[in-house]
């Protein structure tokens, strides 16, 4: 058992979010597009 399943859910959310953020950031930067740059207004 890994304890309370809702606790697992919360931890998993945080971990997955971290993984996805790292993935997004590396993909955008590989394309020469810095994340968080001063974006142009529409």
């Amino acid at each position, binding site marked *: 058992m*890994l304890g309370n*399943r809702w606790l697992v859910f919360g931890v*998993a959310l945080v971990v997955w979010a971290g993984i*996805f953020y790292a993935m997004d950031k590396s*993909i955008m930067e590989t394309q020469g*597009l810095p994340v968080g740059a001063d974006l142009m207004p*529409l």
Partner: protein
Amino acid sequence: MKTSYLIALIVVFVALLAPEFALAAGDEVSTVLEGAPKPSRLDYPLIAGISARTVAWSMAQMHLFLAAFVLAVPLFAIATEFMSVATGDDRFDNMAREFMKITMAAYSLTALVGGGLLLSLLVFYPHLMGYLIKVFRGQMLIYALLFGLESITLYVYFYSWDALRRGNRKWFHMSIGLLLNTVGLTLMFVANAWASFMMSPAGVDAAGAITGTVWEATRNPLWNPLNLHRFLDNIAYGGAIVGGYAAYMFLAEKDPVKKAHYDWMGYTSNFIAILGFLPLPFAGYWLMAEIYAYSQQMGITAMGGILAWLFIIQAVLIGTIMLAANYYLWSGLMRTDRGAQYAKYVKYIAVVLVGGFLVWVTPHTLILTANEIQTLGGTSHKILGPLGIMPAKNTAVNLMLVMTFLSFQMFYRSSRVPTVSWAKSGNMVVIALYVVGIVNIVGAGMYGYITPTVYKVGASVPQVLSTLMIIIGSVIIDVFMLRGAKAEKVHWGRMSERSQYALFVLPVAFTWLMGLMGYIRSSLRTKWHVYTIMKDNSPENYIPSLGDAGNTITAITLGFMAIMVFVFWLSRLGATKQESRS
């Protein structure tokens, strides 16, 4: 047995070398710097008022439909055969053989239509064919030889099935299958080289004079994107067609044992079709990106001009494919006793699928009258207009793919009860993966609205990878979580007849879609036989109107479906035996 090993080794050796021989055939630089021919209008034969373009188009498209099918089926037949060896389950072997049986019936028709295509091209477009033969030289002869080898290996593979069914002989049989597939794929890659050379010529100068090797002409900028797209598409298409066959047999059979067999075959075929289909949008995206990279004008002709409307029709057809495939999977939940507990989630998946479908078919600008434009305040609707741009489309298609995978995962889980102690926690990790992945897909889509175009395009990559990550992550977790799971009985054959019509929808929609997309790809050359190198001066050197193209493609699709029904009927007839005299 030692002889068998030796022959198997030779077969594998030849299989590995065949592409080398074919693709680099005649690999010496031509010393004659003669430009591409410049035929005048009078050089195109006019025969009894026949539309040369329509004849060549119909033959090419029909040949492509049949070839895609007969090349794809051996790919998953050998995979299914391998499953029978790996699991020791003869059902896989029987199904693989049945896959091949349908291919056999279609193979001679493929060759027949291929011959018709060659004849129509030589009769109506002799200068173009002469030029292509000069560019590709010996490769064309090797193509003919490979076609012979394909025929031999196909017949040997099918007819030796029962003779080489057990023990080491099975590996020998699979080696023949490997050779068959290698030759088949090489044939496709070679033909793709000719088609992609006409779009993005290489190994020639601006006047069309041959300056490079056959390999340079073969490895033109669009060759590999086209190879990947057609490879995946063939698998999806082949799966859809054998799914149609299984549905036909399911509806025709009365014997419950046979019905169960064809239900299982239909399920497997649908799985193969989805497997090939899931990565297809990404391959299409790559192809289109390479088209833009090669020629922006060509890209804009595809996506920004009159042809752009076909992408709306494409969305309708792909939406139809997804709805049909998902409906079939949902219907499959009734095969297991635990399936009902998943049924309550179907409505939510349906909402996302229909919502995604509607976003995908929403055009950015509308064809309107002057009064309508005045009333609307422009050609773009204030609320719906923003749904017409790519970030919205990308978000919609990725969510639809995720939901399609979820439908499959639900059916897969409905027949397995996990026994590991961490099953509940594992489920939570999977749910969290879905939640974060979906938020990321939607977030990247919204990001596209507040950033310049370059970010918009760039943000589509994380969307694609999020979809793949959800799929791969879920599969990995499920593999561990369902290890040693208690298997529930799957009642194959306990399926509504209505669900089988969803399996019929798939090949029809796929065929139509391939016809439409082929029309776009070919039209991108506009007035050129070979883009910017050899001009088309025939009376039909213009892009046909959408209406005319739609009619032609629909007629070809109907013709192909008629051929398929004939092939299915033929396969059934072959299995029918009259009672003996006594």
